[in-house]
């Protein structure tokens, strides 16, 4: 937080780095920072996780006890799918399918001290992929202007309007596997650990991958 020039007795106070990630995109070779507010949904106390575990165990014994899980996570799952699907009705159906698959496979679920939501979202992720494999539709990517603003960290709105097409083009050039990671990290604010659990990969691998994608985006923007 504190930054000072020692020998010359120059003291610069309150130099605060608000940011959790360093992102290397911007025109030219400038190093930029990007704010990522991590989704608080993922962060749970040990007590909360333990309570979740009890809920799951109860549901394993009797499917009727699945209700608290369904009630608690319906919105989380729905939002995850609605982020990727255009239609509300189809989102509802896929959400039901996710809970159906969850219930069907509940006996196989092993508690590893991680939030149950990660497992649910892994199923939701797979169901969404299945959906797009079956229908001939473009993959929907929903985002807010503020996400783009964050991505450029440019406060001048006119400048953002100029950069927007290039940025969207750069995103369009990404493979679906890569765009999914950008979506989770920067449009949904998910922690690397949670992303790793959803994608069933190591956290370190996900981190590495995200930084490589950002490099790719940077190069793509520089070409424009």
């Amino acid at each position, binding site marked *: *937080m*504190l*930054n*000072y*020039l*020692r*020998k*010359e007795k*120059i*003291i*610069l*106070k*309150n*130099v*605060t*780095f608000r940011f*959790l990630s360093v992102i290397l995109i911007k025109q030219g*070779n400038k*190093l*930029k*920072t990007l704010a990522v507010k991590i989704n608080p949904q993922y962060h749970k106390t040990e007590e909360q996780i333990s309570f979740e575990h009890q809920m799951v165990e109860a549901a394993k014994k009797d499917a*009727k006890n*699945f209700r608290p899980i*369904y*009630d608690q996570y*319906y*919105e989380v799952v*729905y939002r995850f799918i*609605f982020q990727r699907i255009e239609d509300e*009705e189809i989102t509802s*159906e896929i959400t*039901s399918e996710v*809970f*159906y698959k969850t219930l069907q496979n509940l006996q196989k679920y092993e508690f590893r001290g991680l939030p149950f939501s990660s497992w649910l979202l892994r199923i939701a992720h797979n*169901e969404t*992929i*299945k*959906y797009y*494999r*079956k229908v*001939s*539709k*473009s*993959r*929907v*990517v*929903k*985002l*807010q*202007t503020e996400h783009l603003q964050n991505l450029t960290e440019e406060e001048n709105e006119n400048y953002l309007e100029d950069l927007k097409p290039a940025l969207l083009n750069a*995103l*369009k050039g990404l*493979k*679906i*596997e890569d*765009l999914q990671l950008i979506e989770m990290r920067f449009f949904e604010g998910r922690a690397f650990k949670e992303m790793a659990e959803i994608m069933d990969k*190591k956290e*370190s*691998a996900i981190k*590495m991958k995200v930084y490589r994608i950002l490099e790719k985006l940077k190069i793509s923007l520089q070409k424009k």
Partner: protein
Amino acid sequence: MTDYKFDIDGKQLSSEEINAKKDFDSFYKGVQAKSKSFYQKSWFWASTGLATLAAILLITNLDNSNSNSLSENESNLINISENSPFVNPPFEHLKVESDVFNVEANRGGIFKNRHGSILKIPAFAFFNKKGKTIKDQTVQVEFTEYKDVVDQIISGIPMEYDSAGIKYMFSSAGMVEIRGFIGDSAVKLNPEKPIEVEMKSNYKSTEYNFYCLNEKDKKWDYLGKDSVSRSPETDEDKAQDFNSGNNIAKSDISIPKEEIEAKLQAAPEYQKRAKKRIQIQQEIEILEAAVPSKPIKANEKAEKFSLDILEEENPELLPYKNVQFQLAPGEKINPQHTNQNWNKVDLEKGEGNEVIITFSKTNSRQKVQYKAIPVLEGKAFDEAHQQYLAHFDNIKEKKQELKEAEQQIKFLRKEIKKKSVDKEFAIQQLEMAEKMAQLKNAQAENAQANKTVTRFFTVNNFGIYNCDKASNMIVKKEEKVHKIEFGKEKGLLKTYDVFSNENGVYSQHISLNNFYKDFKNETITIGIRAGKLGVLKQTPIENGILSFEVKGKPSSKRELKKWLDI
């Protein structure tokens, strides 16, 4: 490349709106009857009305569950079965293995699958969903071949053909499914660039017709005839090979690579070693990605400054923690900058070893920049230099560990292969005589159908294609079903009459108070309910009782074959 549709600042739903859709009771009631993803069901797209009707029927069914009336349950289930997906694999974890070919769209190519069948794909054969030719991309073509009755059952593809209201069973000379994908997206076939298929078949008759599965209209479309040519190797030749002596040698036994890999991956020892290998690979990847910059020794006379970093706030800046920034030649500190509050610092790579450090303020255009070289002095430099060298030693060490881990896996694979060959050798010796007898019988019974031939046809759409002849089955007995005995399982029941000699299966949805048809010449009749398989104990059935010996959920195709006694 996947097509994306960006929705910027689109509709956002409130928690209230989402939670209004939540209905656990309906969900729970629907769970029992659901066996397949809704969007895999063609009827979903055709009519949500039908889905609603099925749900209402199901709710009625479960509401009546207290009355414990099996007949009511079953009569409702028949309505649901009518709305079941047209292609409906009965065993969730069992799938007929496919071959996936990576096809360069500009070049096409010739591809051979595990059964020896061939796909000839012309250049520029693929369309994207907008109907434009796909260029400069690789398309994954998934080629699945359904060779026998077991494959037909596993596939869930209906093998019945309706002609003018009369149902026939398809006696198959071979069936293929061909699909194309780029990433997650399905691609289409350019109708003017059809794929030529050369399918290996054990049935040489020219009586077979050629059909395409119309999944939209839930029917098979007749396309005409395929053409047949005899392959150099026939079953007769095989029989002669058997006759020519018991000359099976271990060196002749080839275990499919996939099988060895499957066994290897199931071995706990492999899992342990593979886990270690992945761990080492990741460590190497991380180490290689994080090769540090070579430390530079500070010039004692030059002006320097350092950054004091709060670890929790700025973990990405930790590498700069003990670094001194030596001002670049020509740079001077402006004392006016010393007593101001700055909100932000950017580090930007400059020329050579230089970095440009920019201090700025929120909501202000004021910025100051200094060019400096990150340097270390004294002990810090010595330590960093040691660490720099140690980093490369570490990578070298990890690579050696990786090599050893890979050698261990290689050795394990070799061991597994040897054991598999020994086992297969023993089995083949035992089975040889039996196979010989079976082959001779088959030749005698159906001299027309026991040749290995190549059947030629072309396809101009991705989908499921079948070389079939429609067999009119003879009903031996038709009886009203009064009782179903299928262990403790409830839910939809589907029976399959298996006609091994004709390479066909005939399926029926069963419900109480409906008629069950018993056919002549079927090899075996099985029932499938909730993913479990049961073998019909008695045929024809008596007193309207359908009684099954429940075997369970098949874990493999081999197990299924065993249960079907094929």
